């Protein structure tokens, strides 16, 4: 079900701001040193990242990583405390034209509980010059939503679908979905993601989808950004990421460096075996090691653990020599 697109990017960017060879791809969103403070608490600080245009981007990260804050900054609901953010080269919500280019479904899919479905469509049609009424009514019909039903009486899945319809029929160039499937049952979740998938396949819309469930993202996304504590820990096309990471295992007495030119992301020792998750573009196996493909959720967990370990190590000051994940990839 994953979207397969033409590959215009082949590099894997770890961290952000890596210089890329050749012509850089079009950018949908760029943030630099971005920070947002609420009174004394920084919800996001010094965040630098780039989201390429024309992709379905999964934004993952643990709770409190700053995903929602980042997305609210991107749609202009929040103003940055420090740094800068631009969407298609302009300040978010700078004017009607800029607002028109970005569709947004906020967390929990807010709708007016007392207004019927049809009133939502009428209202959003009046507020958006590029409104595709045909698309909206087609989707409402196909979803089986009763236009006269008050939005407050819809199920969570229906409400999310209504909110998605409102955002899609605006015909945005960038569609931002903040935790759209959190709180939905598996069927509603699958249907919602199917809708996003179809949209991405039909239209040249850039989609950014945040979640902390990697399995959901893997179904629709072709690009992944891992955000931990405001920092990009991993970013790149999903198939490239998978191709450049490997799960290696060997008896515990095996050699320390299994592959030349590789970076160990996580290591675990269970019983008599050592299992490593390594990054290497061109793997050359030493004798005694076996290699398996990695799964995306394992990869994300490994990088999240690495980040957590790095922060813990920072806290303990110098002393830790390597970064060992606390949880082992399966």
């Amino acid at each position, binding site marked *: 079900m994953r979207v397969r697109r033409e590959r215009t990017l082949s590099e894997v960017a770890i961290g952000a701001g890596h210089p890329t060879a050749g012509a850089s791809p079009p950018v949908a969103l760029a943030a630099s040193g971005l920070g947002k403070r609420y009174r004394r608490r920084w919800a996001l600080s010094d965040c630098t990242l780039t989201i390429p245009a024309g992709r379905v981007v999964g934004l993952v990260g643990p709770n409190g990583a700053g995903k929602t804050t980042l997305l609210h900054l991107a749609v202009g609901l929040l103003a940055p405390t420090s740094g800068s953010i631009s969407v298609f080269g302009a300040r978010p919500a700078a004017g009607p034209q800029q607002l028109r280019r970005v569709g947004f479904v*906020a967390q929990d899919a807010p709708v007016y509980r007392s207004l019927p479905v049809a009133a939502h469509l*009428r209202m959003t049609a009046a507020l958006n010059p590029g409104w595709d009424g045909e698309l909206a009514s087609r989707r409402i019909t196909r979803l089986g939503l009763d236009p006269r039903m008050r939005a407050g009486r819809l199920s969570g899945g229906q409400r999310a679908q209504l909110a998605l319809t409102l955002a899609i029929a605006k015909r945005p160039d960038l569609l931002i979905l903040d935790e759209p499937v959190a709180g939905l049952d598996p069927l509603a979740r699958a249907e919602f993601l199917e809708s996003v998938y179809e949209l991405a396949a039909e239209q040249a819309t850039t989609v950014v989808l945040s979640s902390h469930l990697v399995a959901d993202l893997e179904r629709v996304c072709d690009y992944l950004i891992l955000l931990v504590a405001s920092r990009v820990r991993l970013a790149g096309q999903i198939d490239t990421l998978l191709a450049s990471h490997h799960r290696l295992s060997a008896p515990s007495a095996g050699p320390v460096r299994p592959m030349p030119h590789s970076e160990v992301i996580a290591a675990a020792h269970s019983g008599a075996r050592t299992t490593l998750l390594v990054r290497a573009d061109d793997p050359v196996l030493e004798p005694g090691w076996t290699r398996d493909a990695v799964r995306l959720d394992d990869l994300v967990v490994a990088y999240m653990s690495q980040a957590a370990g790095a922060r813990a190590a920072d806290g303990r000051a110098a002393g830790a020599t390597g970064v060992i994940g606390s949880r082992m990839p399966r």
Partner: protein
Amino acid sequence: MIGVGWLRSRAQTAAAAFVIAVVVVIAAATGPDLVQLYRAAVAGCASRGNCKAVMTTFATQDGSLRLWLGVLVVIAPAIIGMFWGAPLVASELEDGTFRLAWTQSVTRTRWLAVRLGVAGLASMAAAGLLSLVVTWWAGPLDQAGLSRFATFDQRDIVPIGYAAFAFVLGVAVGATVRRTLPAMGVTLVAFVAARMAVTYWVRPRVLSPLVLIRPVNVAGYGSGGFLPIPVAGPSLQLQPPNLPNAWITSTGIVDQSGRGLPPAELARLCPSLGQRRPGHGFGHTQAPASAVRSLQECGARLGALYHEAVSYQPASRYWPLQWCELAIFLATALILGGLAIWRVRRIS
């Protein structure tokens, strides 16, 4: 975009329409009779020459309905501010729907400006219509009563200004407090405070009052207060001046140079003032002849040295004052509207 404002305030619009409809029905049912009665009373008293007494009686007709319609006109703006103004921004913030509203292809400034404009004009129309109906209905009673300023803030155009002010005040408070219920409470308190400040402090000072100088005309005296215990010291009761429909802001006894009457001087000129009559109690009793005589002597002694100064706004200033008060509240509403837009732009 204008339709959006309507969609979002359907409940309030329906409630306002319902209240106005009820008032229109009541006014239509009883108003024409009142007009007929008034015409008959005017025609009848002219031939008999007892118009003053007839009109005074006529003005007390339908007293409770007149009172309640007046109260409705007075509280309608407060209700508009609380239930229409305060939730406009606050409920969007509270329910999280601002994330839907402010990510459409309309800037926040325009979103709020249009909603303020549409619902603000609707508030003004509702209050104006209500006032128009009540003013028409009470017209005969007001004409007979000869005290237009007593119902100054229940009639004609000022309720329009109050409604505009209350509505925008509610929006601005809601955008600042960000929660509906507290915003409603703050709106009510602030609105009542503003209305009282204008009624008791601004309105008497908008146009400097005229002063009528006339001889002292003592009607009686008493101690200010309902209780047998005098709470405000003994004072003279002066005959009310014959100024129909005027607003008397103050009356006082002054000498040639305009200085007030000192209490010691009053006690010297009217020694019987403040003395308790034997058998004093509640209710009206015929004063003994000696008391009436001493009152007349007191009036004569006072009148030789002092005269009465009556400060008042004449009936002809009713409309200028109505327009002034409307302008004050509309201007304040505009300023608050700017403030509300500024607050909403800053919400982040």
